[in-house]
């Protein structure tokens, strides 16, 4: 059984680095058993397919454009995740939704997938989160730890 926590985003662009920062903080704050793996996925796109397909339970932290613009922590589960995949100009535009669709075509979708995201407030080229997003981080981490603990208990 493999529980994977994957942080996505680019630490060079302010709040775009939210996912990576969340995983780094979790790494420092938790001491999970070996079946839980915390991964800084950066913006590796298609190169993360192995990680997505190898996971039984997948928790992802990422910046997102929500359907409403309220600055808060958003959580989406399984079917709520966006399934639409786009025609690309660059291999670098492969997003989360495409990874999940490809995993589906290979018949290797995680049993459960949860996305925890925030709407980025600052995307300028600088390292570090904006105060608004920094303020949301504890809540996001709390939510993430709750999900991982739930999976650990459910699978004994």
């Amino acid at each position, binding site marked *: 059984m493999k529980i994977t926590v994957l942080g996505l985003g680019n630490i060079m662009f302010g709040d775009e680095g939210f996912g990576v920062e969340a995983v780094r903080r979790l790494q420092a704050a938790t001491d999970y058993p070996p079946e839980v793996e915390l991964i800084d996925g950066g913006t590796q796109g298609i190169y993360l397919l192995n990680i997505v397909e190898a996971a039984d339970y997948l928790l992802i932290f990422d910046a997102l454009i929500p359907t409403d613009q309220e600055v808060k922590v958003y959580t989406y589960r399984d079917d709520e995740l966006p399934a*639409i995949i786009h025609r690309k100009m660059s291999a670098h535009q492969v997003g989360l939704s495409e990874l999940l669709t490809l995993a589906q075509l290979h018949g290797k979708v995680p049993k459960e997938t949860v996305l925890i995201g925030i709407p980025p407030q600052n995307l300028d080229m600088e390292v570090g989160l904006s105060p608004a997003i920094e303020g949301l981080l504890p809540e996001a981490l709390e939510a993430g730890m709750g999900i991982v603990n739930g999976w650990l208990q459910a699978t004994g």
Partner: protein
Amino acid sequence: MAKRIVVDPIPRIEGHLRIEAKLNGNNEIADAYSSGTMWRGLEIILQGRDPRDAWAYTQRICGVCTTVHALASVRCVEDAIGAHIPPNANIIRNLMNATQQTQDHLIHFYHLHALDWVDVVSALSADPNEASRIAQSISSYPKSSPGYFKDLLKTLKTFVESGQLGIFSNAYWGHKGYLLPPEVNLIAVAHYLEALDFQKEIIKIHAVFGGKNPHPNYLVGGMASAINPESDRAISIERLAMVKKIIDDTNDFIDQVYIPDLIAIAGFYKGWLHGGGLGNYLSYGDFPETDINDVDSYLWSRGAILNKDLGTVYDDVDPRDPAQITEEVSHSWYTYKDGDEKGLHPWDGETNPKYVGPELPYKHLDTDHKYSWLKTPRWRDNPVEVGPLARVLIAYAKGNDDIVGLVDTVLGKLKAPKAALFSTLGRTAARGIECKQTAGFMRRYYDQLIANIKAGDYDTFSKNRWEPKRWPKDCRGFGFTEAPRGALGHWIHIKDEKIADYQIVVPSTWNASPRDGKGRSGAYEAALKGTPMVDPEQPLEVLRTIHSFDPCLACASHIVDMEGNEITQVKVV
């Protein structure tokens, strides 16, 4: 009346490529403009930091190109401070680089580029028995039975009928520009899925030598890979055996799947030889056999070709020479303090953004003036193309045995003339040829490493320049690699042990650059000129040619859109 098409992936952040193409009355592209982003502000992030940490930041610039920026960066700092690395570190870097090239080319062909040639919806009407017959006639790849193709058809149909067109949505299915019969389309779709499944294995090599993947570790002065054949914490016999198996499987996959597919698909498109473009090519060279300063030892040669003249290779390419590499801003949203007319060498580079384009939302860029966030790099004042086609042509012109053999074999099988290389299809073929070559490099470096380990050499790091007090007070360095998509250069200025300035010229800046002060186009713009469009509302031909360069422009953004907005916006106006 002249029409203008716009192909513009809607950006979440400034990280995108936009093409505007003017058509003539025959629906041929009369002129094209390429506009894109640049990583403004990188030098500000790096200024004042420890040069030994630069690789960890530069590897994050670009989503997928992490390894190549890390490699260029450590080479750059080592060049500045005068550090030399042990032979094992050079071998491991070469092995990781060859691994990256091979995986990247494979992913590019199947994942990004194949759908410019392959019609997925047509594949649904294929006869699986006929697909099996064709597959077995071109390759010994074992997954080729009628049953295999029947099962795949069933999966595809279920997928499409359930409305989850997913990866296959938003394309131009049924477009007259697609020329493959249904069975060949089906084979290609089968291998699209197989290739994406297989590529996951290749990169495990990075985890072995870089400690982890994604984001393997690099180190100024060597590599952080401890070798100890007896230990399970270091690079051990067991892990090396795994690496060996991955290398063997990779070579098999390329020989049995990628190359036969490439030749089969190209056979149907050899009449479509558009997209050649500039005819000027540049490569910094890479894969030093001994030391990075021994340019003659590179397995990929440094050099340049002008005007498609394969009879002359310019061997004196020197990226340190201020007269050779310059960046202009005459059509870019920047200013230079001494005027925008004169190009600057990266060591003297400036990044002063000044947007003077139209207000958002706009219909057209002001292509007569400034229209891109990319600067315009030039080699000895020439616009050049970089990437696999440049490298393969330079090697071919220099008579490199491996490349001459591979190129002539592919041309022979296609019954195509040498001139066919100067095209979109030629660029795509060059990438496949190169992928086969780099898979061979993986084997070569593995064997070199094993020989050194057997001889008792476990050394991977040289600490003699690690301490900043041993560095010159004020020094400059140049570091480079030939990334999968072309020449990548890093230029650093170190002062008092800290980064004073850092400039990067990435491959896509060479290829996607806007016009220079003399009005001359870069590689993308030149390649699009003269291309006939079957249907301007569905600019398949534009995507095909731009994708053939493996653009690197939409880097760095990884935001999920919960509304599922389209990325590519196509407008005819």
